[in-house]
């Protein structure tokens, strides 16, 4: 894709929940390694991917954000030993819920990224942005509810 085309592409807004112990550190690693990061992401640090309650994801998507990405430790590596196993089950069910509605399936993703995987972090973000850009704006965005403080 030429840089000219890129600038014309839809610029999505993506909400990223990153686990303090792995992917948030992975983000640091990406930064230290000077890997390029698209400016489309808002990263929220959480203490564990299991702390991201499904309501947070639903709320963001149904109010019109273009995508939500949850990043956690690889299964087996959870700082709290088993948090991400719960994340995984919830994630699967949440995906199934979106299947039932026939919407948002692509706009919600979970990925496992360790503290050492700076490259993987920036790759994941870049791919997510590209994919969501192709999907275009979240159709619920124009029907937005409200953002409260």
């Amino acid at each position: 894709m030429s840089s000219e085309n890129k600038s014309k592409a839809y610029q999505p807004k993506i909400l990223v929940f990153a686990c303090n112990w792995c992917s948030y550190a992975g983000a640091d690693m990406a930064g230290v390694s000077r890997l390029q990061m698209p400016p489309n992401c808002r990263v929220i640090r959480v203490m564990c991917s299991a702390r991201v309650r499904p309501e947070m994801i639903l709320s963001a998507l149904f109010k019109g954000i273009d995508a939500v990405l949850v990043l956690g430790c690889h299964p087996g590596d959870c700082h709290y030993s088993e948090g991400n196993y719960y994340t995984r089950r919830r994630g699967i069910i949440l995906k199934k819920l979106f299947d039932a509605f026939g919407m948002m399936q692509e706009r919600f993703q979970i990925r496992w990224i360790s503290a050492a995987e700076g490259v993987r972090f920036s790759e994941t973000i870049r791919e997510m942005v590209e994919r969501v850009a192709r999907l275009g704006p979240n159709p619920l965005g124009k029907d937005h509810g409200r953002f409260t403080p």
Partner: protein
Amino acid sequence: MEDLLRKLANEFLQRPDAECFIGYEEGPNGSVRPAFIRRPEDIHRLVWNQKCYPNLTAYLPDFPKQKRVIGITVKGCDARALRELIRAHQVERHSVYVVGLPCTGLKTPGEDRIAERCFGCVFPEAFQYDAALGPMKTPDGLARTEYETLDNLSNKERREFWKLEFEKCIRCDACRKICYACFCPECILDSTQPRWLSRRQNLGEKLFFHSVRALHLVGRCIGCGECERACPAGVRLMLLNRYLQKQLEDLFGYRGAGILEDAPPLLTFLRDDPDPFTGGFE
């Protein structure tokens, strides 16, 4: 059978520790509604027929945990709810006197056919009733899947379907308040700090409301269909809950809430659960 029911209720109310007996009675315009019988002279009001829709166990968490005993009639589905309530420490087994109703399927209101909610009926396994009006086993002929499902709809059709369904929703809360599993003293949907839900009547807010309910019911829904019956607008809520239950069965082999004693699937995990999140983007 109603004679036996009244006899059991009467006997129960004679007990010194009896609080009240929850059953069904005739309601307005030919309907049946919950009845709270406290005095033996009122037992004649009790009925048992194919219009006894309400899941009476939903009332149990309202009663303070106490030594007094509550008599209650349960259909197979309700018994599953009761088992879930006991597992979730909302009801103590010794504080209920459980009378089983040998339900063979309820009728569609105003029609002479079995209600859609009753297809796929499963009675709980190895559940101890204190008394029953007949053998408490899963009725034959209801295992068919003749009810409507989302399976045959495409993504686009599903979107359109729910858009129309939720457009009907009037945000009255009946689905939530009638549900046996919605026993939280303060619901997240009522929280004001933070306020998750606004009173806007747009699709996003309605999707949020019903999604939160569906997710909180994952593995706890007994498929009784009371949400759909209570809905004044006729929103097809049962389809959503059933769809998710089907996924639980396929993914984790979970047959449904209250059939066995096992914990709901989101409260547990296996190290080798399916993992759709390991790879990159396919």
